[in-house]
């Protein structure tokens, strides 16, 4: 009975601790929603699925090329963006700028030999840093090409595979006979798969294959005979992928921890209020808003130092090219810190106690980080998720850092991200000042 009495007491206290309830019961729900949404687990398909953007330039403009485009558009895993022939922003330019993971260029002459019998008329320009999207694209290219060219593409692929492997043990002729027999059986298999609608690429398998050391994306494109060009990075796909992953991971963690850190700095306002020093500051001559400005400055400086230090140290440990454009990096860090500072101060003046601030900020920062791409690349998430993500400062900060580190942009190249971050800072700062005045409205 005594234990039950103690238990009841704790339950009563817990039920009255709103912050505790929010963290204990609300946060898991929020995170489940965020993770579920990000991974496309919600809804079981449709818009909930991961769809990789693929730019398509149809320079052939034949029935065969149009059939291929239609087949690509029919793939659930692809979001096809058709580029007009007269558009100077070619697929290559767009991918190089980081606007998408890959582009497929259908060169003139494709319609004459859709089965890849001769020189390849399909070129895949890709961003090797977006590894997960490459798997998705490769997995969806395969059925699209099969569907558009029927048996031709398959036989050509087999021949190409034969050329690649050469079957030294059994001889070329014998191998051709075996493959022909296999191909006849595969025609039947494709027909069956098309009938039951299960011809979509299995993304999970693709990822598993990669984990086992097999580069599914490269293997598929090789077999399909696509000419592949990596338009971002230094040319070594493995190294590029590593560098891109590290840049993303470090930037993501940097932004998330910055938000936590600067909310804590902003929280010193609440500490000062509780300890009485805030009143003492308010009693000094001058405008009360000076106190807020002083806190902004302090928090901003801490934020810049935190980011610069983190990038300096991690650049020594990982392949993050922070010295490619140091001025741009500093301006971006200052902008990210400004947005995060205003975010932290706004939260601080909106909360009544430090405990309230800590509880609320934990939920909001984790949610923003997940939606904003601090934990995983936004490109792998559904469209609605990406749209929502860009309402967070994390997403713009991540875009800016990836632009600098991965796409090699300069200050001008990341001005849009800097502009949005400063706009976020301005909006939050205004909201913080209004809230501050409302709270301490006298004099």
């Amino acid at each position, binding site marked *: 009975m005594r234990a039950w009495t103690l238990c009841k007491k704790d339950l009563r206290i817990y039920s009255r601790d709103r912050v505790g309830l929010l963290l204990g019961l609300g946060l898991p729900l929020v995170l489940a929603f965020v993770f579920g949404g990000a991974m496309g687990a919600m809804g079981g398909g449709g818009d909930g699925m991961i769809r990789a953007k693929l730019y398509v330039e149809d320079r052939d403009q034949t029935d065969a090329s149009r059939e291929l485009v239609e087949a690509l558009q029919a793939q659930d895993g692809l979001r096809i963006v058709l580029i007009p022939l007269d558009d100077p922003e070619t697929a290559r330019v767009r991918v190089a700028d980081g606007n998408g993971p890959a582009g497929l260029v259908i060169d003139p002459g494709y319609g004459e030999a859709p089965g890849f019998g001769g020189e390849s008329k399909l070129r895949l320009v890709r961003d090797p840093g977006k590894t997960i999207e490459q798997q998705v694209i490769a997995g969806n290219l395969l059925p699209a090409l099969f569907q558009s060219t029927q048996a031709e593409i398959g036989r050509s692929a087999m021949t190409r595979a034969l050329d690649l492997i050469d079957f030294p043990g059994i001889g070329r002729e014998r191998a051709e006979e075996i493959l022909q027999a296999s191909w006849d059986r595969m025609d039947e298999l494709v027909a069956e798969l098309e009938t039951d609608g299960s011809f979509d690429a299995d993304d999970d398998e693709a990822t598993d294959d990669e984990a086992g050391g097999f580069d599914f994306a490269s293997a598929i494109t090789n077999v399909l005979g696509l000419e592949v060009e990596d338009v971002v990075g230094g040319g070594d796909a493995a190294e590029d992928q590593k560098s891109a992953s590290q840049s993303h991971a470090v930037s993501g963690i940097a932004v998330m921890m910055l938000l936590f850190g600067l909310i804590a700095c902003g929280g010193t306002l609440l500490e000062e209020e509780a300890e*009485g020093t805030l009143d003492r500051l308010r009693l000094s001559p001058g405008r009360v808003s000076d106190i807020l400005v002083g806190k902004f400055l302090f928090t901003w400086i801490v934020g810049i130092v935190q980011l610069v230090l983190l990038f300096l140290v991690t650049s020594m440990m990982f392949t993050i090219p922070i010295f490619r454009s140091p001025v741009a990096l500093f301006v971006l860090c200052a902008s990210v810190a400004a947005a995060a500072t205003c975010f932290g101060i706004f939260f601080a003046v909106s909360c009544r106690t430090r405990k309230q601030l800590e509880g609320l900020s934990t939920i909001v920062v984790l949610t923003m980080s997940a939606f904003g791409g601090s934990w995983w690349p936004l490109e792998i998430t559904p469209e609605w998720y990406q749209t929502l993500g860009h309402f967070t400062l994390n997403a713009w900060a991540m875009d800016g850092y990836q632009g600098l580190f991965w796409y090699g942009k300069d200050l001008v190249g990341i001005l849009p991200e800097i502009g949005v971050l400063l706009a976020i800072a301005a909006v939050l700062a205004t909201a913080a000042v209004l809230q501050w005045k409302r709270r301490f409205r006298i004099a």
Partner: protein
Amino acid sequence: MAGSEAKRAAGFLHRLFATNSARGFACRGHEGKAGGRRPTPPQAIPPQLNAPPSPDEVVLRTRGLVRRFDDQVAVDGLDLEVRKGECLGLLGPNGAGKSTTVRILSTLLAPSAGEAEVLGLDVVKDGARVRERIGVVPQELAVYEHLTARENLAFFGDLYALDRVTLAAAVERGLAVAGLADRADEPVRNFSGGMKRRLNVAVALLHDPELVFLDEPTVGIDPQSRNRIFEMVEGLRARGTTLIYTSHQLGEVERLCDRIAILDRGRLVAKGTLAELQGHPDVRRGASANLHFDALGDAQRAAELLASNGITCTLDEERPDLEEVFLDLTGHALRDGVPS
């Protein structure tokens, strides 16, 4: 017993025991209102308590001051006047509205209704100018624990835009007045509660304010530190600074204040000098003649003698109070040992 009778008895006893010194035992005769007798407090009344309020200019005035928090009324139509150089004690039980009044008058809180003028300035419209000329010693220890005493003083002095030389002098003066000169460069977190309280007072005085609000400045400290704060307050009084002093320690108010305002449930219950308050019609009064004897036997004989003359007398053995015992045993010097 009539008052004249008591005086006669005292004179009689004085002559009788003229050779005895006046400490040790007391024999008191009382005059009280009908319905009971009540001993007067043992403390001596400082002469300034009976001094009339300064006839000089009024530096603080409120008219119908009201402050509501939702449906709670913290200050309810307060009318108050304080003259220049005066020390007004603000008394009242918890929740009486003392701190709210101080927060309104020091521009930290807007009144819900009514007017408040400090140093001729409206506290709402001219808040910034009011703040330049007042000092506030808050109830909380409003100093930065991670800064040293000197850094705290220099920081707050800097906020008042004192020039470098004036600021340096003010900091040194503050350290000296607070008795912290020898610990000036230690972080405040190492200080005892008393040291922090003294620093808390010193910070409020850096810019030499004309009017100082002291909101329970001696809460929870040792008698030595409390006495040092008293000295700081008395120093302000000597310089003609106007003071508003709130406290639950009635003895402090008696000692330091010229006039007293008593608040209850947000309303002003009474105001005036101690003598005026003692003469308040709702306050029971008594008269006593205190006679001191070194020997208990002398006191007993005096009591018998008075009784035989029809004068009621109670015999009390006088004992030093705990503060006297404490100070006699530990001395009056400040104790600022490093806290554990």
